[in-house]
């Protein structure tokens, strides 16, 4: 990688964005590779959409520079940037047919008529809407509108496609289906996708890399697996999946939990004895009673809640007042209703020491 990121699709160099006194994005340094499906993940107000809008040219950084394919873009207006955006509200042009919506960008670039026709047909084929070219946006369903918005952006072959929570307005089933399709389309066209979402499952399912943002700062950047398995702090652990945080104190190679029990864990070398930490164990890594294997760390507790969620049942166990763990039980294990843990049962929970993360 060169100094100004010539090999990358987008390069943020110490980018800060302020709105009045509020800092939306704080000293952002980030490099996104060509052809990458990159997600900005975070709660609302974390600065992810502002970051996206700065790439699109709708906001200017207060400080720092943004490079698109190695070129600085601060002086380039939105309509001259080689990026296109898929908006959350679709933002289709209601007075134009689907074909004319998709052709809009090409016409602005004075592409020849025959080529426009060919590329529009290709783009509509890609999103499987080639039979609805004459329809008006209002005649389409939400999912179809989303595809038109996607085709309208992709047809221009931008160097980067910006997607601002594009699936936010769809219902759950359609959202899951579109996740798979989006990933497939991205692989097919090979364009860099910069995807903004607050839905951690969506980010995990589609991204090559994810940056988790909070309060304008990137907390962690890595592959979905890295972020899920090795979150660097309580915020990332809590934002990605259920984190099961237990407060404790470092004590020569293990963790003394708040209820007094000692817990084997991979304590980082630089964690001084007596330092306050949090122990995080993912629910699916927790074994209950007879599933516990030799070598596991075990704790005792009382079942306080059980939530049936279809494929699995969430079992919430209280170790001590204020210390709760959630375990997942696959529903094929104990399908019969007379053989379950009930609220009030005493149970033993166990996990492998390497599955417990020590977070500071």
């Amino acid at each position, binding site marked *: 990688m060169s100094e100004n990121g010539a090999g990358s699709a987008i390069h943020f160099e110490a980018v800060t964005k302020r709105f009045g006194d509020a800092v939306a994005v704080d000293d952002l340094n980030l490099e996104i590779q060509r052809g990458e499906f990159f997600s900005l993940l975070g709660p609302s107000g974390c600065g992810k959409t502002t970051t996206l809008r700065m790439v*699109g040219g709708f906001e200017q950084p207060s400080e720092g520079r943004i490079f698109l394919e190695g070129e600085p873009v601060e002086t380039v207006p*939105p309509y001259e940037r080689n990026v296109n955006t898929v908006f959350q509200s679709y933002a*289709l042009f209601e*007075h134009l047919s689907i074909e004319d919506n998709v052709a809009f960008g090409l016409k*602005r670039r004075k592409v020849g008529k025959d080529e426009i026709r060919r590329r529009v047909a290709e783009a509509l084929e890609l999103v499987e809407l080639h039979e609805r070219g004459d329809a008006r946006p*209002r005649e389409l369903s939400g999912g179809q509108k989303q595809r038109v918005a996607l085709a309208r952006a992709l047809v*221009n072959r931008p160097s980067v496609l910006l997607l601002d929570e594009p699936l936010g307005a769809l219902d759950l089933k359609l959202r899951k289906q579109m996740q798979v399709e989006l990933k497939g389309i991205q692989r097919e066209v090979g364009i860099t996708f910069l995807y903004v979402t607050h839905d951690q499952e969506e980010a995990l399912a589609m991204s090559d890399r994810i940056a988790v943002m909070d309060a304008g700062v990137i907390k962690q950047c890595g592959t979905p697996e890295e972020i899920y398995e090795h979150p660097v702090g309580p915020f990332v652990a809590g934002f990605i999946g259920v984190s099961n945080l237990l407060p404790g104190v470092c004590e020569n190679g293990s963790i003394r939990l708040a209820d007094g029990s000692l817990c084997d864990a991979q304590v980082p070398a630089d964690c001084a004895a007596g330092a306050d930490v949090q122990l995080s164990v993912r629910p699916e890594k927790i074994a209950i009673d007879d599933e516990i294997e030799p070598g596991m760390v075990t704790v005792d507790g009382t079942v306080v809640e059980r939530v049936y969620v279809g494929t699995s049942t969430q079992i919430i166990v209280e170790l001590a007042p204020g210390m709760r763990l959630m375990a997942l039980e696959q529903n094929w294990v104990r399908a019969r209703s007379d053989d379950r843990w009930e609220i009030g049962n005493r149970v033993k929970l166990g996990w492998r020491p390497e599955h417990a993360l020590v977070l500071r």
Partner: protein
Amino acid sequence: MSTEVAPSPGAPTGTARPARTKPPKDFDRPRFLKAFVGLFFLVLFVPIVLVILFSFNSSRSLQNFEGFSLRWYQEFFESESLRDSLIASVEIALITMVVATVLGTLLAYGLVRSRTRWSNAANVMMLVPLVTPEIVAGASALLLFTQIGLELSITTIILAHITFSISYVTVVVRARLASLGREVESAAMDLGATRWQTFRLVTLPALWPAVLAAGLLVFALSFDDFVLSFFTTGESPQPLPVRIWTQIRFGVRPTINAIGTFMLVISVLSIGLALLLPRLFGRKESGLKVLLGREAA
């Protein structure tokens, strides 16, 4: 009350209760309300219907209808001064419509898109012409024109009409613009359209039904305006409503009925067009919604 008795166990229940023939739908809509609404429309329309009817009367009488004839329409169109007044009125209404629509649309665009601390104040100030008593607006316009030494003529009427019409256009167009949302314009610029192309290719086509409806509304308002015109008119030609008023002072002729009917037709036509045109342009919303600013989400 035999039908109220509960059927004995095991007995077929079908015969115990008579089939309900009419759903009890009237309990929340009392009949007197319907009568009231009917009376309202009667009071509203009877005088108008009488004017239309007597405009075709063959005699001078304003009380007895004696036979069908078009003589009052003939008199109306053959009178040179009345014809001049009609032409003046149409001219005033057309120019007012074009200028007020353009200015009002630009004002709406500015009010919706600018987000300064003055925009709220401007949004309220803009409504002032709608609630100012016309007699005040007329008197102040007259005062202004004489102060700056502008001779009263069709021009002064047009200026006064434009001033009060802009607000109507802005109210109608602003509602439409607010419902359009900013992302659509962002999308156009994102796709390579400059600011001007965005306005021409995306914003204006979306606003078109509202702009059209507002324009026709302004035409109707200007065409039959009396008070403002009365204060700002010159000697000749006077707009039709002022001309009628002048004529009535020298005695009521049945020609009035013909002129009234004619003006009614023009006003109804322009309002009707305002309601219909958005539909003819292939939009599924009615012009009524556009005019009232109630957009389908």
